[in-house]
């Protein structure tokens, strides 16, 4: 029986100091036992001689320095995993909250994960058709990628994420597919939207949910994505499933991180977030991927809301430096009733180049993609100029580009949340739009594709 300490010396915010501790180790999990028998979890942040500084995962309310006891558990944060995780709902610490039985674990896995050896990664290059043109055609998702959605308050990121979860498939294959969903500090309504959506399309039994709602302890949010990713890794690399992980909302996670850092009186970096936030976020995002010699994959779609729609805010900024691209939602497009309001120009998928082309999507995919991007950018610039100076001030060709840009938003991007387009359809719409432009403008496309697909006038 592990030793119980009654030597809690300080509790302040999410931190607690315990004295006269023997044999505790860094990152070890501890259990606080309140007078009424209630148990709460904490983990060791620093151990200095016999003083252990621990971080609470739940509220400190009710902790009494006189009567509360602490027991160290001899291991770091873990999740018991088995096939029975599927279809279940857990709280942010991985305890079942759906009224069902406890999981009888096949094994216990450390929730912090262990870094993948870069030499054993398998480069993601399998095209995932999401049925969304702005993603499939221009910012292609591949299996094992981490592709976040940068959203802002009031934008329909949940609808887009649900659409991807509903429609995503790899062409020509029917495989073991699972969704791991982590709600990090979001509202009941938003979380319920996802659950209802999973229910409606019958995927709930292939889904594992970890729910930390807005009224659950903020500090638990540090554990929630780790629990979810541990479950995902188990399903992917032990059971060989293809797992899509949706983490929403990373902004709440980062705020919890800031809260702990502030309590520890660490020197803050930008906007009060800790200097190690890049490393910390990387320890989550980098858990996506594929491994050589393993069947499954972890594909990750983290969602974050950019404070004040600002992409340079530390949370989206650091995320963008780690993830393999980003899908950015635009308020301006949403106001114009373009749904999903994906702002394709600043959006990016870094892994698209190896996932598209002949035998994967279509041989002309890369050329069409580059041409659409460049034409839309020119069209948007010209449009801006036209609104300032009037139609006469821009050249003939610019007016054509403006028309292109309008049509592009209407036909290519705005497809609604319930249209599932095949890659062929997406490519076809792309060519219809490019045919608005004169042939000589299609500098980024090989002649042979122009001959084959171009339908415009000379």
């Amino acid at each position: 029986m592990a030793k119980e300490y009654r030597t809690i010396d300080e509790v302040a915010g999410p931190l607690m100091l315990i004295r006269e501790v023997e044999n505790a180790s860094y990152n070890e999990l501890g259990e606080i036992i309140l007078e009424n028998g209630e148990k709460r979890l904490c983990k060791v942040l620093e151990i200095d001689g016999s003083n252990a500084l621990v971080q609470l995962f739940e509220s400190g309310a009710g902790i009494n320095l006189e009567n509360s006891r602490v027991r160290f558990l001899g291991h770091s944060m873990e999740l018991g995993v088995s096939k029975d995780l599927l279809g279940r709902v857990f709280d942010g610490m991985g305890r079942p909250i759906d009224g069902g039985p406890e999981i009888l674990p096949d094994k216990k896995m450390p929730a912090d994960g262990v870094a993948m050896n870069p030499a054993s990664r398998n480069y993601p290059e399998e095209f995932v058709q999401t049925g969304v043109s702005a993603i499939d055609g221009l910012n292609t998702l591949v299996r094992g990628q981490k592709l976040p959605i940068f959203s802002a308050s009031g934008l329909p990121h949940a609808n887009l994420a649900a659409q991807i979860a509903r429609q995503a498939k790899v062409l020509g294959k029917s495989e073991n597919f699972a969704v791991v969903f982590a709600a990090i500090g979001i509202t009941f309504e938003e979380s319920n939207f996802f659950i209802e959506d999973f229910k409606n399309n019958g995927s709930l039994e292939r889904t594992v949910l970890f729910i930390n709602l807005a009224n659950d302890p903020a500090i638990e949010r540090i554990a929630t994505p780790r629990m979810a990713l541990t479950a995902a890794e188990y399903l992917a690399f032990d059971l060989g499933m293809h797992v899509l992980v949706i983490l929403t909302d990373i902004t709440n996670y980062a705020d919890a991180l800031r809260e702990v850092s502030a309590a520890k009186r660490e020197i803050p970096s930008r906007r009060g977030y800790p200097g190690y936030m890049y490393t910390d976020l990387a320890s989550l995002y980098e858990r996506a991927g594929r491994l050589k010699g393993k069947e499954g994959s972890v594909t990750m779609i983290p969602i974050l809301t950019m404070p004040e729609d600002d992409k340079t805010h530390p949370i989206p900024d650091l995320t963008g430096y780690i993830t393999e691209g980003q899908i950015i939602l635009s308020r301006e497009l949403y106001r114009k009733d373009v749904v999903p309001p994906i702002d394709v120009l600043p959006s990016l998928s870094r892994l698209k180049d190896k996932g598209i082309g002949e035998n994967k999507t279509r041989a002309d995919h890369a050329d069409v993609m580059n041409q659409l991007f460049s034409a839309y950018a020119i069209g948007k610039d010209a449009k801006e100029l036209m609104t300032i100076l009037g139609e006469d001030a821009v050249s003939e060709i610019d007016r054509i580009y403006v028309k292109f840009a309008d049509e592009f938003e209407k036909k290519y991007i705005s497809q609604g949340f319930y249209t599932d387009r095949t890659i062929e359809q997406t490519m076809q719409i792309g060519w219809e739009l490019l045919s608005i432009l004169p042939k000589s403008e299609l500098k980024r496309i090989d002649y042979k594709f122009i001959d084959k697909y171009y339908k415009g006038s000379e």
Partner: protein
Amino acid sequence: MTQTKGTIVKVSGPLIVAKNMKNTNLFDIVRVGNLGLIGEIIEMHGDKASIQVYEETSGVGPGESVVSTNYPLSIELGPGLVGGIYDGIGRPLTLLREKAGERLTRGISAPTLSREKVWEFWPSVEAGDNLEAGAIVGSVQETSAIVHYIMLPPNISGKVTEISQGSFKIDDAIGKIQLENGSEYSLTLNQRSPVRKQRPVKEKLPPNTPLVTGQRVIDSLFPIAKGGVAAVPGPFGSGKTIVQHQLAKWADADIIVYIGCGERGNEMTDVLNEFPEIQDPKTGKTLMERTVLIANTSDMPVAAREASVYTGITIAEYFRDMGYSVALMADSTSRWAEALREMSGRLQEMPGEEGYPAYLGSRLAEFYERAGRVLTLNGKETALSVIGAVSPPGGDISEPVSQATLRIVKVFWNLDSQLAYKRHFPAINWLKSYSLYWDKIKDWFDENISSNWSALRAKILELLQEEAKLEEIVKLVGINAISSTDRMKMEAAKCIREDFLHQNAFHKVDTYTSLKKQFLMMSLILKYFDLATEVISRGATISEIASVPVKEQIGRFKYFSDDEIDKKYKEISTQIEIEIGKLAKGGDE
């Protein structure tokens, strides 16, 4: 020497404090705890030592032991480095994978170089020769592209008493050296070098030749010299990594050291998969046969990230010392600086700007200063070029890491997110970037490519500058309000941007452009511009000029391979004369 054994008293993330450590040296490597994690002593107070641990410290607690190895952080150098991938402290990742599986289990150690592999050694010295430090004693064919010269370590000199030809393992004795003090040094194929110290050279020399990269915007407008240092700052998504990968692929260096410092795991995998497939245009061998990879990805321990840049540059220096021209890419130096910041914070040092330690600037300078054109100890003239990526938060280069870097580097390739949104790659902003090596290497271009090179470059830069100015005016008054000559300038600048500066890294021909082809491309565009300006003065209109069919051919010129370009150049050149000439006639009537 007796081994010092200390006891852990404090654990705070990657920082550990141990007592009974009086008998150790600052910066010695220690093995920490029951798992034997690798750490480095970074501070000493009385008998307490602060240790930064290069592995995750979860589960380590007070009372566990710390054992000193009595040597500083160093890397094993010798045949077998090329083509390998190593972590920040030089452990071979492929071997770790064989030993421990897909994930990086803690406490495993493996020597950098294979102990089993047998190398065929050919001596180039004889018994009786007197050798200076750093002298070459023989060679090993390391890959089909690289001959690995075996050198005396930089602190060993003396008389060869024995040297043998034959097959050897990495640590077999291949000969003996009698040192000046009379003692004997046993020569092996490998040597160790402390990573935080520069490997000595005879002399540093100023750079005088360009490092040709095959990237048009770089070679033509903002070239880097062999032995030069360049920085590529840019926000995420602006294509830093692609620029770095392109340089690693096409730079005309003999050896490439690529450091993935705190970046994405998949990017390293990409290099690992792709480089063995790509042919080096110079040697005809695969690129992997000249590349060394250091991978300390963002999810790997932060302290080892700090070490990774030093490990990388020490390897680069070692190959430089053999006489090879080496180019090193570090992606990204910002992650390294953040690792410094994290350790500094845990040591409770007084922070400088934005929490970075006050010594950030001097550490950066120290690192970049290890680049340069040099005369090696064994008398070879060669160069080590360094290209560092910087990831400024929000793309704002007023932050400390960018600013400290810009004070040191001489080439600045400013990546611009607006260009990236337009999918103009490489997104190097031509108005903000600069190269301070231009004056030193412009003669090289004029002598080796064409005497016209610097004139063309100046004209191109001028047109781009003018375009920026004219664009401002157009924004105010509309395109029709400016003169035809000015509109022609804008037309030409557009042509330069789209047909010359824009380069598709994923196109099999466009990905690399020889200097000769770059010159021909510039010539074509400027020829079009000069002739057009002339006919405009004789009454031709802009829309006539902008719609000549040959323009499309100019734009397609980049897709022709080097063996067709002479022919195509002549064709297009004549075509320009004919088509624009026709317009001139219209003007005369």
